[in-house]
């Protein structure tokens, strides 16, 4: 096991954690906006929301991530880091990966929230409209808080999937856990199973508490009817 000391395993997993947390934040914001579009009374908004979700959700994540690098950066020239920085390539790729993961995961967050919105009884929105709240307020104050509470458990699954999906950032060279695993496998050919097991355990250590914590939270904030 002492060969592990030659590699920055914790550092690689730290990148994984950063990728996960940052893109989760982006995905939740995007997911709420998309869900609001998909339940809005404006047909154009609904159509745009549905089109985005259906296109992005059905595109393999590898394509989305490589698309951010090839399409947004190399073709369209979008840079997300200061290009005078010595770490420009690394920082830019990391941020492109966060963007890609958020754009992709946002569609799953949207669909989870939308199912939660549909689970809120219609009378809740009617009562909210009847007291004079405007559409945005009805959604923000009454419907979404109840919808999100009821989808904490499904959102935990989305977050766990996202954690594992961050490994795809290695496709554009982000130095997260799976890229290090690949490097270790190349250098330590005889210890393949061991390397593999260590990295797998690392992911379980990250995701298991997320599931337990959010399961507890789901019971805690669940709306009683």
């Amino acid at each position, binding site marked *: 096991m002492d060969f592990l000391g030659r590699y920055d395993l914790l550092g690689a997993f730290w990148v994984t954690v950063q990728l996960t947390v940052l893109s989760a934040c982006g995905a939740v914001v995007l997911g709420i906006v998309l869900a609001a579009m998909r339940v809005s009374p404006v047909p154009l908004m609904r159509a745009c929301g549905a089109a985005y979700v259906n296109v992005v959700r059905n595109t393999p994540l590898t394509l989305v991530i490589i698309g951010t690098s090839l399409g947004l950066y190399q073709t369209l020239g979008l840079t997300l880091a200061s290009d005078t920085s010595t770490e420009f390539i690394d920082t830019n790729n990391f941020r492109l990966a966060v963007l890609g993961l958020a754009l992709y995961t946002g569609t799953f967050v949207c669909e989870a929230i939308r199912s939660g919105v549909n689970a809120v009884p219609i*009378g*809740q929105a009617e*009562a909210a*409209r*009847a007291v*004079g*709240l*405007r559409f945005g307020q009805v959604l923000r104050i009454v419907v979404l808080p109840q919808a999100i509470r009821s989808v904490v458990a499904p959102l935990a699954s989305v977050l766990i999937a996202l954690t594992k999906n961050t490994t795809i950032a290695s496709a554009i060279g982000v130095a997260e856990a799976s890229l290090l695993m690949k490097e270790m496998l190349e250098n330590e050919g005889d210890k393949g199973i061991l390397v593999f097991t260590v990295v797998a355990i690392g992911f379980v250590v990250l995701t298991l508490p997320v599931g337990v914590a959010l399961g507890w939270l789901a019971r805690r904030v669940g*709306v009683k009817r």
Partner: protein
Amino acid sequence: MPAAEATPMIRMVGVDKFFGRLHVLRNIDLVVPRGQVVVVLGPSGSGKSTLCRTINRLEPIDSGTIEVDGHPLPAEGRALARVRADVGMVFQSFNLFAHKTVLDNVVLAPVKVRGTAPAQARAAGMELLARVGIVDQAGKYPAQLSGGQQQRAAIARALAMRPKVMLFDEPTSALDPEMVTEVLDVMTTLAGEGMTMLVVTHEMGFARRAADRVVFMADGDIVEDATPEDFFTAPRSARARDFLGKILSH
């Protein structure tokens, strides 16, 4: 009489409403003057709930006009929200906001719609909860209350907006029998205080006791429009006689 006083609180002219091919409201004309308590009776499926829900446009109508306090109902948007703020509504299924405490239910709209200061809204909210007799439940969530308590909280929530008119859509139909009285008592008090009310109900006792006027509907039409005394003792139409015969016989 000055023009302002002559303006009816609710005016419906030639209102038609379809659910698909079902004609649920047929050319309805109804005027509710300020301060009047109107009870709408009728067999289920007669369109009485739909009628109630068209007045704050929870159900849009297909033709005709509806005016609240002299102003035609606007289409969706901010203007409609402003009208709804002045029209209190109480639902059959209470519809208290399930994720908020009873007091927060009452305080929500005054703060978010009227811009009342939260402290002031809370004080007013506690007063209203005391008025409907559930001040000790202020910190609980709706699911922790009995049906009767929930409905009284819903009435307090509507009253918190100081509405010009109150709509009640079968407020006691989802209640256990022993809880009907506590809700009707609150409504009777409200009627006695001069609130303009339109009440869809099956409670004949309430209609006799508290109503100024009974409107009887059948098949989307207003069949009779009379005082409670006249309606219950001498219904003119066969439909009304049949209806009263069925519900008063047991």
